[in-house]
């Protein structure tokens, strides 16, 4: 069947809600997040603020410098969640096939909706009208026959945009060709400079690239992936299950931290927290992920798969330690985070040859952790813990 995919992206979502709820903010630069004299970052900014070069994840102090007369408002997440649910309800009137990506964007598969609502463009217009009428907010919508193109399109005509991607393969090529290479999924901070240095600046450059040459630059699999995307091909399906896809925790140091021991200690606390949440959810994780943000806001994430899906703290800690020890802490760390993803309902089913040699069986460790969890649930978190998490005699650990 011919697919019709919509990507609905709310325009400056948090900031627009604040402007709607506070008429006095309208037409003024609005920055949602930490105050201009506080430590913290911009969570969102209105279009007026963006004109001053303010963008999300920028330190608020920097935003204050760029635009001292901006309105700084704290994040009111409960309110945004409420509005997000209102929008989700609107989207679900058009199709049950909705994959929310975050509070302010979602994919819709409306392939089956033509008889009821008209073609993709007609559905997109109805969605925009309904959102505006019921929430006084605007959304930008991309219409295409796959997810990659739809998401790319929604971003081309913001705010309040509606972009239709052509269906004819030759027209798709022409549509994509002038766009910068950074628009391809998977081309980010690392890959983009590499591609640009080699002369691949636009998607058109990738379309014309020799697969072997591109492969020698970014690896064969990535090259094939970029070539496909550059032709506008993407056959991924929407992920519809509402189950949690990842669990993560992070911690921002009050004062940037340079001590590897202190960071490791905090990381282990985060790991325990994630482990407990994971066990509570009754899931097993396939991948562990470490996040470090340096003083200068540069952030790195490193991940590695578990040899077998795990939910016990021992496996999680080993993974976190492995990722952490591989990093050189040569500058102060501002934030440390740990997360798990590729969650599944069952532990690994593959049996081991050297069961006895590999230490205690996973199931034994899992039982131990579950016992500790139930003790903590009943008697409080301080009941039982790792000895290494206790304050040392020579002072608090962090």
């Amino acid at each position, binding site marked *: 069947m011919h697919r019709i995919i919509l990507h609905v992206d709310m325009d400056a979502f948090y900031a627009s809600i604040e402007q709607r709820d506070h008429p006095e903010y309208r037409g003024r630069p609005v920055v949602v997040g930490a105050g201009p004299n506080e430590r913290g970052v911009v969570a969102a900014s209105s279009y007026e603020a963006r004109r001053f070069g303010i963008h999300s994840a920028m330190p608020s102090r920097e935003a204050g410098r760029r635009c001292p007369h901006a309105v700084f408002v704290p994040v009111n997440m409960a309110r945004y969640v409420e509005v997000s649910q209102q929008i989700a309800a609107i989207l679900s009137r058009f199709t049950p096939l909705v994959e929310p990506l975050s509070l302010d964007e979602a994919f819709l598969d409306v392939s089956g909706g033509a008889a009821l609502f008209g073609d993709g463009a007609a559905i997109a217009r109805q969605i925009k009208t309904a959102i505006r009428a019921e929430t006084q907010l605007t959304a930008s919508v991309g219409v295409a026959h796959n997810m990659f193109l739809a998401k790319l399109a929604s971003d081309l005509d913001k705010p309040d945009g509606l972009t239709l991607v052509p269906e004819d393969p030759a027209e798709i090529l022409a549509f994509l060709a002038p766009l910068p290479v950074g628009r391809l999924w998977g081309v980010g901070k690392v890959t983009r400079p590499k591609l640009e240095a080699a002369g691949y600046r636009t998607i058109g450059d990738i379309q014309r690239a020799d697969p072997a040459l591109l492969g020698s630059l970014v690896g064969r699999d990535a090259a094939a992936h970029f070539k496909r995307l550059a032709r506008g091909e993407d056959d991924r399906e929407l992920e519809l299950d509402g189950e949690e896809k990842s669990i993560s925790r992070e911690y921002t140091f009050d004062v940037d931290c340079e001590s590897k021991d202190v960071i490791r200690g905090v990381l282990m606390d985060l790991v325990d927290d994630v482990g407990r949440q994971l066990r509570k959810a009754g899931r097993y994780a396939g991948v562990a992920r470490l996040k470090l943000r340096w003083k200068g806001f540069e952030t790195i994430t490193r991940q590695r798969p578990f*040899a077998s899906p795990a939910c016990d703290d021992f496996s999680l800690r080993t993974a976190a330690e492995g990722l952490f020890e591989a990093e050189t802490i040569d500058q102060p760390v501002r934030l440390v985070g740990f997360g798990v993803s590729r969650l599944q309902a069952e532990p690994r*089913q*593959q*049996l*081991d*040859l*050297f069961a006895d040699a*590999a230490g205690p069986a996973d199931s034994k460790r899992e039982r131990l952790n579950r016992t500790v969890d139930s003790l903590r649930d009943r008697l409080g978190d301080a009941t039982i813990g790792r000895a290494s998490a206790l304050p040392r005699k020579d002072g608090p650990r962090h």
Partner: protein
Amino acid sequence: MKIVIGKDAVMTGLQLVHGVVGARPTLPVLSNVLLQAQEDRLWLTTTDLEVTMRCAVEAKVAKAGATTLPAKRILSIMRELPADNIEIETDEKHSSSITCGSSFFKILGLSVDDFPPVPKYEGGHVFTLEQRVLKEMLQKTSYAASADETRYILNGTLMSFKANKLTMVATDGRRLALTEHELEFPKEAETDAIVPTKAVNELLRVLKDDGAVKVHLSKNQAGFEFDDVLLITKLIEGTYPNFRQVIPSQCDQRITVEREAFLIALKRVALLTSEKSSSIKLAFGKNKLKISASSPDVGEAHETVSIKYAGKEIAVAFNPDYVIEPLRNLANDEIYVELTDELSPGVIKCDVPFIYVLMPMRVS
């Protein structure tokens, strides 16, 4: 250095050694191939500090000398040049002029002094066997090695020279492949070496079917010398797990299967496995094997293969790759599958010294 070399000769040399050069070397000079010209020979050397590969090809040496040049780039230039004589001349600033017909390239190199010295043999023992034998033994086992860095001791293939036999083993902790070959050597030469997967893959790529290979083994290094090629690798240090203990001494049931038919059917049915459900079910009945797979979000597949079997019905689930890989790397027409029950190790054997043990998957 100034040489004239045929395109075929230089390509042969570069293709032999370029595989060692990694995508992101830790030192700039490790991207380069060391070229040394003397006495009608051009020696080419590459290294990643773990594995070093060296070979010699014929060349007319007008002026002996050496340089280093970026390996991948030189390979791509040579590949595109016409099949003719190529002149390479190096100046004192490490840049080389490459001339072929009317084509001219000037390539910047790095100083020979920066290039790590080729490791030397220190003591140890030397074993000689046919290249074909070494290659076949590696083919039959090396795919079973682990790629999980947390199990580094399993990130290679064990070569155990004991009791006048070379035993080769690879395992990832869930399946294990073993093969043996009789070989004469003195008792005091008995030794074990775990050869890292990268070196194994290079050996598989460059070993030929004819001629002998000399294997030099010392405590932490192995050298493989054949024709005009030398591969030296660091060994994985540590004690390999006791693999003998996981090989079942006896299984209850023995099934004879035609390898090719089994392999093709497995490959087809395995198309219906997914990340969520990665197992394949083998149901052995009287002279009949039913292979099936199902994936909740994709669909299902099954296929029946004729076998020789008169024992009790037995069904067991495996990771399909764990069954496909040994079959793909064997050449026998018939293989034997030995099983006890759905949770005990399965064994694949054939009429050559080869044994493969694999653990089933538990399915609910």
